[in-house]
């Protein structure tokens, strides 16, 4: 099977008599789910998991017919790929009887009920009930308390000598080998988060899961991320009750953290995702119920966030707030047009204090409007705030409660992550993400700031979300301008080819900048520049064709937009200075090269040392150490950017790579810019490895104060600079404050760029 063939071809087969067309390479299990809507039972594979199938439990076997008759040995549907003309039977007496016997031998070795079975959470026991082998039992209060055999099985239980002792050595996860069915889910889950602590050991009937080289779990390199436990289908890996730290609540306002039972009751999302009880118990502090009164802000545009909200009661209004400044720490970026001198920012110079009554509220969009504009109403059952959890960007809208007694359930990013293991839920989440993202960002663009809602809605529906990899060319100079783009995430570099064939970098554009609008309206028009993705770029794209279609229905809008677009083109486009000396030109290019190569544009708060002033006295490093328990979070080392040394200290990136893959959501932004690593970090190295600049370090054997228990001890933690927060009262961070020579400063990458760019231009 050639790979290329697999990707392009579709195959047609019949499953239980129903014709199904799927992409070649799809497993029968997947195809059957789509064709019949029913899931073929399985223990080692699940719709919930994002893990590759291994085909070991064999419960999902199907009969691949041969000329209408049974094809002999059954095939594991999770592994076997669909082939053209295949006839598959997923049901039938023989298959069901085989599955039942398979479950019966597994159950014979299983402690019925196991830890999870007591809550009705054990997949094996659940299937045992479905297949008439077990029946549920209830305690005296009538609550489900487990299962028991309907009649004794002829199969005797496993020889106890082949079962490893229970392992309770880990503080948050308990292992009961007697409930393990060796489905390899934990092994795959552990590898999936790159921990690789769990493996299969031994052979045959003596096989068992093992940690590292057969150590007790508590003595292994396990970081307690809980992935194994989330994925375990039986009571083999369970939560032992240790409480992690999560969301803060204010009980005076009637806020509370939800128990697992309450989560199951309150969050309909859970029933679809089949999240196991152990995970809910472990996430107990990650899900909070909050109450809001009329007009109160639930989350604010421009702030960072690591939580999503589910509306339980009442309704909320989503506002797209526009303005130039406000209470948030979000730093403003000037738009492209504005940078080119075409568009002057309107600034009233006041520093607003925030709160529900303000007229001007901040946004990282390049334009001003004078009032907050409600763009959507959401009611009970809706989810919002998920975008910041997905893309680690600032909140793109403000949400306020409509009436008193609005109740929302706030959940952490990791909780949402786990919900997203369910593919249906994940797809739905992506759909919402794209839909909302497109709408909000179109509204924020210059061109569409004043058009009607209906028009924008139409346009939003035609828009697509496009993604580019670093180095991808988005559009080329002199190509026809046939699409309009709004940058949602990432950076785009703008180059212009000069008459002499030399390409000169004009600008780079960041989030919320848009381009290509003129080409949509005034034709014929050619791209005046080449735009290339600098990093991972996500943009909203509206093609000219789609735009014209929508425009046909709103002739008034066209005139309005054309007028606006013409007002831009009447002004001269900025051209790079041509009178600078060759040396200055070379210098400029060297700096530009460094700027992009070192990805300085990513940083929002770089610690740079002016090497012309710096005497290498190391006061900055010492000050950092003093502030942080003798463990410095910066080293006076790094790449040089012209006369500056860009130190190894958190840059506070626009697109922080470190935030992805933290298994316990210990690293995140709260409302502000700094990346915060909470004290419940498990030291798994994920963020350390993800930071491209080496600015996060995991310290082994460091003296730490465990805030959970208040105990002092030796532990392993990832540590990162907490920016300007470190000295409390003083506005500057300790490193800058301590510098006796005024050599250290914290600076936005953009500002640093402009410092040079402006300087050169002046010459």
């Amino acid at each position: 099977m050639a790979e290329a063939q697999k990707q392009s071809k579709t195959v047609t087969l019949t499953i239980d008599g129903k014709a199904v067309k799927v992409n070649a390479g799809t497993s029968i299990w997947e195809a059957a789910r789509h064709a019949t809507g029913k899931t073929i039972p399985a223990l080692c594979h699940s719709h919930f998991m994002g893990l590759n199938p291994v085909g070991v439990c064999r419960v999902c076997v199907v009969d691949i017919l041969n000329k209408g008759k049974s094809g002999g040995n059954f095939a594991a549907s999770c592994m076997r790929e669909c082939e053209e003309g295949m006839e598959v039977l997923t049901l039938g007496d023989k298959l069901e009887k085989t599955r039942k016997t398979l479950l019966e031998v597994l159950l014979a070795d299983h402690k019925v009920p196991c830890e999870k079975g007591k809550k009705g959470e054990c997949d094996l026991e659940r299937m045992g009930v479905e297949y008439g082998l077990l029946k549920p039992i209830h305690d005296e209060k009538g609550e489900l308390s487990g299962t028991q055999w309907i009649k004794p099985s002829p199969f005797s239980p496993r020889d106890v000598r082949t079962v490893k002792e229970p392992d309770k050595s880990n503080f948050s996860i308990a292992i009961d080998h007697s409930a393990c069915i060796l489905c390899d889910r934990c092994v795959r889950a552990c590898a999936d988060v790159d921990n690789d602590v769990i493996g299969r050991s031994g052979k045959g009937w003596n096989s068992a899961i093992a940690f590292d080289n057969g150590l007790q779990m508590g003595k292994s390199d396990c970081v307690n991320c809980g992935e194994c436990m989330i994925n375990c289908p039986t009571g083999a890996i369970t939560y032992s009750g240790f409480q992690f730290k999560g969301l803060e609540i204010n009980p005076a306002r009637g806020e509370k953290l939800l128990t697992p039972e309450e989560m199951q009751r309150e969050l309909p999302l859970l029933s679809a995702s089949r999240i196991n009880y152990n995970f809910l118990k472990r996430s107990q502090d990650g899900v909070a119920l909050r109450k809001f009164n009329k007009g109160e802000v639930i989350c604010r545009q421009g702030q960072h966030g690591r939580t999503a909200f589910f509306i339980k009661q009442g309704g909320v209004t989503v506002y797209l707030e526009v303005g130039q400044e406000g209470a948030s720490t979000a730093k403003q970026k000037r738009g492209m047009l504005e940078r080119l001198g075409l568009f002057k920012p309107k600034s009233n110079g006041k520093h607003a204090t925030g709160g529900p009554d303000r007229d001007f509220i901040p946004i990282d969009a390049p334009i001003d409007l004078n009032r907050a504009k409600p763009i959507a109403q959401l009611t009970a059952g809706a989810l919002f705030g998920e975008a910041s959890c997905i893309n680690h960007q600032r909140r793109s809208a403000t949400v306020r409660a409509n009436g008193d007694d609005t109740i929302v359930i706030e959940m952490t990013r990791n909780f949402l992550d786990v919900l997203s293991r369910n593919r249906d839920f994940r797809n739905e989440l992506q759909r919402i993400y794209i839909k909302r993202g497109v709408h909000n960002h179109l509204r924020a663009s210059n061109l569409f700031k004043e058009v009607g809602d209906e028009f924008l809605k139409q346009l939003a529906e035609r828009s697509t979300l496009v993604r580019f990899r670093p180095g991808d060319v988005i559009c080329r100079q002199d190509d026809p301008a046939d699409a309009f783009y709004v940058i949602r995430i990432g950076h785009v570099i703008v180059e212009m080819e000069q008459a002499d064939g030399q390409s000169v970098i004009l600008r780079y554009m960041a989030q919320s900048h848009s381009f290509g609008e003129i080409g949509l309206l005034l034709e014929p028009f050619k791209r005046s520049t080449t735009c290339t993705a600098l990093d991972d770029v996500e943009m909203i794209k509206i093609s000219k064709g789609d735009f014209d279609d929508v425009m046909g229905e709103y002739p008034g809008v066209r005139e309005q937009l054309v007028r606006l677009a013409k007002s831009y083109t009447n002004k001269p486009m900025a051209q790079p200075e041509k009178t600078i000396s060759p040396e200055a030109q070379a210098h400029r290019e060297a700096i530009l090269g460094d700027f992009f190569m070192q990805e300085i544009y990513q940083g929002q708060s770089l610690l740079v040392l002016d090497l012309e002033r710096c005497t290498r006295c190391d006061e900055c490093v010492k000050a950092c150490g003093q502030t942080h328990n003798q463990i410095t979070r910066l080293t006076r080392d790094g790449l040089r950017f012209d006369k500056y040394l860009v130190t190894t200290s958190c840059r506070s990136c626009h697109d922080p790579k470190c935030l992805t893959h933290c298994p316990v959501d210990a690293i995140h932004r709260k409302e502000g810019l700094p990346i915060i690593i909470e004290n419940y970090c498990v030291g798994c190295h994920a963020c350390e490895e993800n930071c491209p600049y080496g600015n996060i370090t995991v310290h082994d054997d460091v003296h730490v104060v465990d805030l959970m228990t208040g105990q002092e001890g030796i532990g392993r933690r990832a540590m990162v600079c907490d920016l300007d927060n470190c000295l409390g009262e003083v506005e500057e961070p300790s490193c800058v404050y301590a510098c006796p020579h005024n050599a250290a400063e914290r600076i936005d990458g953009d500002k640093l760029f402009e410092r040079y760019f402006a300087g050169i231009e002046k010459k």
Partner: protein
Amino acid sequence: MLIQELREIQRRHNGHIPEDELHALSRRIGRSKADIYGVASFYPEFRFEAPPKLEIRVCTALPCHMKGSEKLYRELWKIVEGKEGVELHRCPCLGRCDGAPAVTINENVHAIFGAQEMYSRCKSAIEGQEVRDQDFRANAQGPFRTDPYGAGEEKYGTLREIIANKNYERVVKEIEAGNLRGMGGAGKPMLRKLKQTMDTPSDKKYVVCNADESEPGTLKDREIMLNVPHCLVEGMAMVALTVGAQHGYIYIRHEYKQQADFLRQEIALAKRAGLLGKNILGSGKDFELEVFVSPGGYVMGEQTALLEAIEGKRGQPRNQMVDMKERALPSFQGLWGCPTLLSNVETWAHIPLIVKKGGEAYKKMGIRGCEGIKWASVCGDVNKPGVFEIPMGTTYAEMLEKAGGVSKGRKLKAFAPSGPSFPFLPATDALLNSALDFAGTKGAGPNAVIDAGGSVGSGAIIFLAEGRCMLDSALNFTRFFRNESCGKCVPCRVGSQKMVDLIKELRNGRAKDFDYVEVIDSLADVLKLTSICGLGQVVHKPIQSVIKYWKDEVEDHLRRSICPANVCFSPPGSE
């Protein structure tokens, strides 16, 4: 190559793998500790604690069991118990069924035909006396028709001829004409997988020889490698050049030390003659061949498990991603993802003969309408157990005669046509006079053994005389499968345990509360229909055949506590 790394560590550390070495290895090769531990703990070769001064392992597979290995184990246990530095274990088949019962004393195999003699030898080892390693001689008697070269004739002549004439087509043509079958037991046409490997485009291809003969009663490859190793090497080289493979492995069980040495010598000779290595005889083609010693385990004889082992993983068979009824799995999902042609020692060794004499001539070597020749072993209750090269189509009765008839003049009760993977059959004239053959041979007449679900298989015939307990024999075979299951898939790992338990309950007269035939049949269906590989798919065969042909005997055990051989109700059974 993880297996070699682990072996090297174990060699340096007096026979075990210390924890810090495992950690260092993990860092060096970038595989997690759990992963490496998973591999090392899978294979019997590796251990994590220093080995004892003396380790004795007693083979308990059926041929040895019939010669009193269980009693030998128990008697030895009496003198070993409590003794410092001595370990005694049971072990699976050692490939010395013709000298049963076989034991290993510190990794060296001993098999001198007789429990009493073996007891004294082990006893002196336990008492601290030096026991000399046993020197094995070839059991099979030549001349062998497998070797196409007469005395004084130059070996590898056919390979030279083919390279000189660039006539690789001839290899394919003659294999097709000779209808060569996979001699490992399945009997599928060799041509099919050869063509599939040849036609799958890839820069890298492999040929692999399965010399991991570990099934109780199967001894033929042992003798082929000892007597005609050059045929194996020539066959592999010929086909490798034909399909475009540059590298080959001979995967050999570690008990076959002598055979591995013979093969290494043969490879060195061939290399010196320019028949292996780079640019073979100026053909512009390369082919390197090496011997890979197995770290142990019967399941490694399963073709994909064997590939996993070479790749340094747990030897667990691979799942079939696509339909494999008409395809050979390694040709598509082979070694390191490359097309791989994998076959048994005997299949490779027949190739020079077929190519030199021609496929038609090879076919005609068979008798009674069967095709070609076969190596087969006979053991159990016979006077002269051993390995024979025979024409395909020889009958089971003739095989019994070759092996000197039933021992001690007893009557024959039953026979296993090929080890534990096929049913036990009663010693009726119709069955005994059937020809050794694979199913589906065109010119052959009716065959009662094949009709009864048997086959020549790997040619491992075990004869059982009157007075043997069939239930005990079925238990022995089933227990062998349980112990040798890799544990990857549920039906085989759990199902084989349950099958052993059920047989024990029948034997001990406890399985009275349910219809045991129905329960065994439903478990058999699970094993047969849902197991990943051939091991799990045949676990049920011994017991189902015993219930079919010897139901009275089963009922005697269950209802009346009577065992015909008086073995089942003696002290509690072994594990």
